[in-house]
């Protein structure tokens, strides 16, 4: 039984054509097939948020989608945000506010917060906490992350 599907997915504005098994998770496709290891995998059941990417501009869990489902769609991962010499303003704010400790959760927070700040450029603290309610961080205690979002919003 030929159970392979050829898909074309645009990731960070680059189109990729690959042949995949339908059971391949989008998170594993990004990490293993495309080598984009910025997207992290924590729980594989939707709880931790580390694997959050943008699917056609909206934040989704990449561990709860199959790569075949991304055929013809646009994915944005943390690699699209900034480079070490030229950080995205939100990354800059994370860095300055000490919102990163081990960094495992960071890509998921960033990919949840970038679209959030686009839609809501001047959020209240409550709205910020709501926006990150689906992302777990074991290190920072969240306060510094909230501070970073406020800082990024203030600078915009």
């Amino acid at each position, binding site marked *: 039984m030929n159970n392979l599907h050829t898909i074309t997915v645009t990731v960070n504005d680059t189109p990729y054509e690959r042949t995949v098994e339908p059971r391949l*998770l989008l998170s594993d496709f990004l990490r293993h097939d495309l080598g984009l290891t910025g997207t992290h995998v924590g729980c594989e059941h939707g709880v931790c948020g580390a694997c959050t990417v943008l699917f056609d501009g909206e934040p989704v*869990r990449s561990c709860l989608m199959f790569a075949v489902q991304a055929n013809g769609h646009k994915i944005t991962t943390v690699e699209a945000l900034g480079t070490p010499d030229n950080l995205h303003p939100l990354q800059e704010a994370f860095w300055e506010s000490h919102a990163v400790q081990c960094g495992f959760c960071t890509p998921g927070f960033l990919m949840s917060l970038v679209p959030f700040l686009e839609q809501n450029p001047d959020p209240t603290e409550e709205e910020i906490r709501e926006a990150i309610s689906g992302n777990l961080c074991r290190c920072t205690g969240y306060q510094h992350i909230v501070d970073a979002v406020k800082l990024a919003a203030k600078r915009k």
Partner: protein
Amino acid sequence: MKPAPFKYYAPVTVDEALAHLAEHGYEAKPLAGGQSLIPLLNFRLARPSVIVDLNNISELFYIRPDDGGLLIGAMTRQRQVEHDPLVAERAPLVHEVMPQIAYPQIRTRGTFGGSLAHADPSAELVAVNIALNGRFRLRSQAAERWVPADEFFVGLFTTALEPEELLVEVALPPMPPRSGWAFQQITRRHHDFCIAGVAVVVTLNDRGQCEQARMVFLSAGDRPVIAHQAAEMLKGHAPSPELIQAAAEKAARDEIDPGSDIHASAEYRRHLAGVLARRVLTQAFERAKARETGKSGNW
């Protein structure tokens, strides 16, 4: 863990999807938002050999007005429902619960129909659709039928759906005049599945007496629990605080059957259910009265 292998179909029409389900029967699973199904596949708690992906079936994504009520296509994303002005106007109870379901990133993908088909007894939409007297349109290749929400949920994660059937549409009737609604739940952390919760819709007659009270508990048994006895106590009476208290106690003591687990004991859930029932009834009757006297009351 990773999912076991399966064959994948991505039909673009309902007819095509139903043909796949008819061919594969119990071997196949429809895939909606995947926010409940894919965790089960990842842990190999479910191992269907065929997945029929509904995400490309554009005819299943819509919210439409219908005779004062609403029609919602099964694949409409939870996030869409959350932000839809027509839902806010015609089904304020649905509007109020949407932001409490899971997290923003789950709701961008999760669907209205998927939450119902999954039939988790802790799911907000399950209780809310029963409280609102929703009706579900189910289709198979051979036939179509409508099932009222209170007959759809038959057990733990079990519904009236046959393996070759799809839930295609939900109809929410308009709330009768002089009606009020409320929803409350207790969660360990904001957005977790609740340890106790209750949805209610009440209707007053033109003398200010309770005509109908549909109170539905979540996390209170292996399926949503409708408090019929409490409703009988309220019927025909003006809703005084004492009567509300008595009805809430009745429901929590005699009508629900919560379980004990790591999150809460049955005893504690029963206690919470009673407190929540009193609060939602009080709030719902207030809203119904506000509507009666023409005060907008958040309508």
